[in-house]
């Protein structure tokens, strides 16, 4: 009897809650380290990026105006969905080159991290807000607010845990994201998009693009409607480009040179704060 033919997955982009191919039609061949798997990864273009930004901007008001509780529930759901797909992800991580043990560890950490940030959505404000004792008769309070669109250059070497470690805090804080996935390990990033898609995450809140970093980096960091750019990595040339391009519209450039996303120090409310703005309001107290 003949062996059943597998149906290969086409790895597309995730933009505005849909899975389109790149509008440029280009692809990059990705080969697994053991050469057993070859995949045509979409080579995302600046137009894909631009479309993603448009989708993200459209979704920002809705996402940031959801109650913090709601956002927490959605993040929790992402964790639930990821848990349900354990085997699929462990398999993909191994195709990308992890050992079984490493893959399991990364998957568990990823789920736990999502649950961790789900618990922060309605608490970080309490840690980082103030009522300030001004010396005039005014009620003066400070609160964090989402900065808006966060462009993310995901960690090269950690396509699930690393990706989640920067996207989860950003969206927990009410931001929306456009992510440039790892190019050396693109599979989990796109499959994670499927998880997002089944988790009640509104369209446009997270968009994931695969592509060549060299080509897309300057667009990610120069787009005038992006409010913050998060870069994971330690390549000085890339960091310099990002910081220079950020000056065009005074983007907040957040650089994470950390490459090990495993330890607990790689999570925390300060990651949320990194993509928050701080607003202070004054109001007179009188009769």
């Amino acid at each position, binding site marked *: 009897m003949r062996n059943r033919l597998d149906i290969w997955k086409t790895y597309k982009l995730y933009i505005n809650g849909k899975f389109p191919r790149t509008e440029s039609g280009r692809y990059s061949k990705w080969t697994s380290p053991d050469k057993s798997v070859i995949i045509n990864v979409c080579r995302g273009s600046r137009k894909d990026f631009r479309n993603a930004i448009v989708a993200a901007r459209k979704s920002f008001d809705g996402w940031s105006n959801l109650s913090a509780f709601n956002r927490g529930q959605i993040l929790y759901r992402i964790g639930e969905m990821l848990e349900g797909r354990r085997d699929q992800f462990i398999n993909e991580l191994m195709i990308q080159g992890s050992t079984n043990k490493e893959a399991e560890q990364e998957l568990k950490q990823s789920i736990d991290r999502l649950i961790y940030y789900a618990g922060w959505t309605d608490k970080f404000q309490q840690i980082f807000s103030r009522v300030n004792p001004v010396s005039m008769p005014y009620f*003066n309070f400070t609160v964090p607010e989402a900065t808006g669109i966060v462009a993310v250059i995901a960690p090269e070497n950690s396509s699930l845990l690393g990706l989640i470690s920067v996207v989860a805090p950003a969206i927990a804080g009410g931001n929306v994201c456009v992510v440039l996935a790892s190019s050396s390990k693109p599979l989990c990033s796109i499959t994670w998009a499927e998880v997002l898609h089944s988790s009640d995450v509104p369209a446009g809140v997270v968009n994931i693009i695969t592509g060549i970093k060299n080509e897309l980096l300057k667009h990610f960091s120069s787009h005038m409607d992006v409010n913050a750019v998060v870069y994971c990595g330690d390549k*000085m040339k890339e960091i310099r480009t990002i910081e220079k391009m*950020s000056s065009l519209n005074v983007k907040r450039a957040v650089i994470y040179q950390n490459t090990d996303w495993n330890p607990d120090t790689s999570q925390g409310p300060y990651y949320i704060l990194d993509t928050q703005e701080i607003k202070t309001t004054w109001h007179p107290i009188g009769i």
Partner: protein
Amino acid sequence: MSKKTRKLSFDTDWKFSPALENTEYIDIKKRYGLFINGKFIPSKGKKFFDTINPANEDKIAEITDANSSDVSLAVQSARSAYEKVWSKMNPSERGKYIFRIARLIQERAREFAVIESLDGGKPIRESKQVDIPLASAHFFYYAGWADKLNYAFPGRSAHSLGVAGQIIPWNFPLLMAAWKIAPALATGNTVVLKPAETTPLTALKLAEIIQEADVPPGVVNIVTGGGATGRAIVKHPDIDKIAFTGSTEVGKYIMDVIAGSGKKYTLELGGKAANIIFEDAAINQAVEGIVDSIFFNQGHVCCAGSRLYVQESIAQEVIRKLKDRMETLVIGNPLDKNTDIGAINSKMQLEKICSYVDLGKSEGGAIHQSSCSLPEKGYWYPPTLFTDVSQSHRVVQEEIFGPVLAVQTFRTVDEVISKANNTPYGLSGGVWTEKGSKLFQVSKEIRAGVIWANSFNKFDPGSPFGGYKESGMGREGGVEGLYSYVGLD
């Protein structure tokens, strides 16, 4: 009598006699060196520039123009003081030095106020009542934080960064120096600060206080100069943190220049704030709020409410009351206690304001100015407002940094919110309404770092200040002001 002929006359028989502040006892040297490593020293470069009084164009003193080797010497002193003394010191002791600075400013407050008005043109009443007290309060506030940092960052411990390079503007010279130096010192850093070219004096007097307070040499260094000195600071490799307050244009330049250097930075840049008056506002107080927002400090305020949005149903009333109020604003000698609006800080700034007003007129805006007379010598500009302008007019989009207000009407709340946010800036905003729920909603929706509800241009050391978008990043004041100067473990 029709409404048109009902006019109030503020040109009364009873006029104010001059009420000049006494300046006999103040001490200004003929020439100032650079304050490096606890002493005033000359520059090897032997270049100087004059600082003048913009109210009469008289020279006040000669100021040293620091070159890049002066800057290097200052950074070196700051580094040495940081490593050998300041970072090793018990935090409570650091706090006590900063308390000393605060108290000494209070003791010499009047002298500082006079010098601030002489050097920069702002009315003595403002220097006395706002600038100097707030500056002293800022030092006092941060002094208290020095030994309590372990409470400021939940779950993390903070460490100082090292040497901070700080560049400040000319609109609130001493206050801006306080905003920069106080938190930097409180968190254990040392400082190289460059005051603005047109207003170096109060920073140099502050250096005298730092000497008097016996602050260890090199902890605070004041280097005077212009753009080149500023660039030398920004580019210096041994500076860990840049703090800049000034124009968005220069802020972007700084980001570009330090890209990839690993330097931390905070920027407090320009603004074009929307001041929104709803029909259910306390109108008389809102009109005074407009004066606070754009005419106070000659409009040289980054967070000025330079775009007025008034609900159409009350627009006529508000504008009429505003015009009447403009007539009672006294423009004149900054040292006269009755002056409301002082001199424009420099010839350059005056030219900029004039060219914007010309632009506004050519763009079709209708201009109204107060009928005050302006002194002959010095740099002056009367309070001005533009009506018949819209979002597309450049005078509505671009920061003028003078006493020029652009007035628009609006009909609905969502219209005005989207217009208020329709700008690359995001420093501040004003909302006037007596309806509580609307106030909270509008405050939430305006994308700006400081929202003044039923108020404008209020400041306090405990209140974090800073912008969204192109108005900058990072906050000064309050707990948030500490973040700028620490690394978290």
